C-alpha cells in the first residue's frame, strides 16, 4: 500500500517537474522570439509603402501630405533628434554632477534621501509629466522666448526637451551611481596617496575609469528619450515642419504615431507609413540601446 502511494506520488512529482520545465522553456522561447516578431510585424506592415517608394525618398523628403500620398519623414526625424539630443544635453551634466556628489562627497543620509526621490521620479507616469509640462514648463518657455525677442506659445522643442530631460534623469542617474559605486576604492586610495586632491582624483582617475560607463549611460538616455510619447506630445506643439530653432514647435515620430493611428486605418498607405514610423523608432532605439551596452561591456576591461 505504502509503496503504491509512493509510486503514485513519484509519478506526479515527475510530471510536475516536466510540466513546469516545459512552461519555463515556452517563456524562454517567447522572449527570444519577441524582438523578431516585433520586427517582422512592423516590416510586413510597412512593406506596402516600400513597394511604392524608396527608403531614401521617404526619409529625406520633407513633404507630408498623406491624403495625396506624400510621405516625407524628414520633419519628424529632425524633430525627434532635436528633442532627444537637447534633453540629453540638459540631463547629462546634472546627472553626472549629482552622481559624483552622491557617491563621493555626500553623507549617507543624503543618498538615503535621494534614493526614494530618484525612484519616485522614475515611477511618475509620463502623462503626469505632460500635465506638469503644460502647467509650468510651457508658460516658462514662452517667457524665456520673450527675453530673446522670439514669439513662442511655449509649446515647443525646448519645452519637450525640458520635460524629457527630467524624465530621463532618474534613468541615467541610476546607471551613473552604479558606475561610480563599482569603481574599486583602492583606485582612489592609490591616487590620493600620490598626493592628489580629492577633486583631482575624481576628475583624472575615477571619471577616466568611469568613462565608458558614462558614455553608455548617456546613450541609454538617448534611447529612452527617443521613444517617449505622451509627455512630449503634450508639450511639443505638433506642427509638421522642419524646426530651425528651439522655440519652434516640433513633431517627433512617437507623437506622429500616437496622434494618427487608428483613425487612419481606412487609408492603407497611411497605415503603412505610421508602421514605418514605428519601425524607424524601433531600429533607432535598439541601435542606441545595444551600442551603449556594447561600449560598457567592451571598453570597461580596457581602462
Amino acid at each position, binding site marked *: 500500500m505504502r509503496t503504491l*502511494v*509512493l509510486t503514485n*506520488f*513519484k509519478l506526479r*512529482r515527475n510530471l510536475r517537474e516536466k510540466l513546469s520545465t516545459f512552461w519555463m522553456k515556452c517563456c524562454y522561447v517567447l522572449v527570444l522570439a519577441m524582438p523578431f516578431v516585433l520586427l517582422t510585424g512592423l516590416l510586413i506592415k510597412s512593406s506596402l509603402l516600400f513597394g511604392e517608394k524608396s527608403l531614401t525618398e521617404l526619409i529625406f523628403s520633407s513633404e507630408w501630405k498623406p491624403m495625396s500620398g506624400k510621405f516625407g519623414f524628414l520633419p519628424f526625424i529632425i524633430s525627434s533628434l532635436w528633442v532627444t539630443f537637447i534633453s540629453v544635453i540638459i540631463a547629462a551634466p546634472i546627472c553626472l554632477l549629482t552622481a559624483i556628489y552622491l557617491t563621493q562627497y555626500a553623507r549617507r543620509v543624503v543618498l538615503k534621501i535621494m534614493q526614494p526621490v530618484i525612484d519616485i521620479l522614475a515611477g511618475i507616469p509620463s502623462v503626469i509629466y505632460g500635465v506638469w509640462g503644460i502647467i509650468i514648463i510651457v508658460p516658462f518657455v514662452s517667457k524665456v522666448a520673450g527675453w530673446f525677442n522670439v514669439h513662442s506659445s511655449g509649446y515647443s522643442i525646448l519645452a519637450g526637451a525640458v520635460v524629457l530631460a527630467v524624465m530621463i534623469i532618474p534613468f541615467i542617474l541610476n546607471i551613473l551611481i552604479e558606475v561610480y559605486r563599482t569603481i574599486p576604492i583602492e583606485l582612489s586610495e592609490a591616487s590620493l596617496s600620490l598626493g592628489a586632491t580629492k577633486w583631482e582624483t575624481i576628475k583624472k582617475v575615477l571619471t577616466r575609469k568611469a568613462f565608458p560607463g558614462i558614455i553608455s549611460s548617456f546613450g541609454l538616455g538617448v534611447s529612452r528619450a527617443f521613444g517617449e510619447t505622451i509627455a512630449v506630445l503634450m508639450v511639443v506643439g505638433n506642427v509638421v515642419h522642419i524646426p530651425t530653432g528651439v522655440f519652434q514647435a516640433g513633431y517627433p515620430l512617437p507623437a506622429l504615431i500616437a496622434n494618427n493611428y487608428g483613425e487612419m486605418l481606412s487609408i492603407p498607405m497611411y497605415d503603412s507609413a505610421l508602421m514605418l514610423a514605428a519601425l524607424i523608432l524601433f531600429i533607432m532605439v535598439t541601435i542606441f540601446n545595444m551600442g551603449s551596452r556594447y561600449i560598457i561591456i567592451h571598453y570597461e576591461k580596457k581602462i
Partner: protein
Amino acid sequence: MINEAKIKIENLNLFIGNNHILKDINVKIPEKKLTVILGPSGCGKTTLLKSLNRLTDLYPEIKIQGKIFNGDEDILHPKTEITELRKKMGLLAQTPYPLPMNIYDNITYGLRISGRRKKRFLNKRVEYYLRQVSLWDEVKDRLKDPASALSIGQQQRLCLARGLSVDPDILLADEPTSALDPISSREIEELFVKLKQRYTIVMVTHILRQAKRVADYVIFMYLGEIIEHGPAEQIFEHPKNALTKSYIQGTYS
C-alpha cells in the same frame, strides 16, 4: 582493517576552463567510517567533495571525467537519477544555509518533497532529528520561528538535522566548523563522532587537530592530487610520503 568500500572513485579528472583541478583521483571511501579529506586550502578538496553528489553540475565551465561509484551506480553517468542519489548524501556546507522557512519546515522540507505528508509522522520526525543533533531542547518552543533567527552554531546543527531527515547513508561535510565559534565547533565534532556509527561521513578540513580528533581514515591531498591515503593512525603516526610528513608536522599549512 577497512570495512567494505562505500564509494569508489576511479580515474577522476576535473577541469575548470583550462585548469586541471583534480588529477587522476583513485580512492575508496570506507563504509560507516569518518573519512577526512585533508590538505592545504585550494588543493581541490571541496571540489572533490562536491563531485561526489554532482553539485558540480551547477557550475559553468566544469568538465569532469572518470567514474564515481556509490554501490554499483555510477554517479557521474549522465543517465543516473541524480535527485534520488543526492538524497542519499546529506550535505553540510561551510556556512549554514537554512532554507528560507521556519525551523519545523526546514526539517520537513525533504520529507514533504518525497511525498510524506502526514502531520503526526512529520512531528515525530522533527523531534527525532532535532534530538539527534541536540537541538530539540533549545528550539522546541519556537519551531515556527524563522530558521534565520537561530545563532549560527544552531543553524549549522539545524542544517545537519535537515540533512539527516531524508535518511541518507552518506554525509558530506565541507569544513563544517569553519564559520563557527570554538564551542559550536566542538559540538559539531562530537555529533560527527556519534553519527559515524551509522553513516559514512566524508569531511573536508584543513585543520589538522580537528582531523586528528575525528578521523578514521585520511585522504591527504595536495595541488589536486591524492598524495597519500590510509587509516588515520597510519597517516598520522607513520606517513610514508615526505609531503604528508611535513604537513602533519606542521611545516606548512
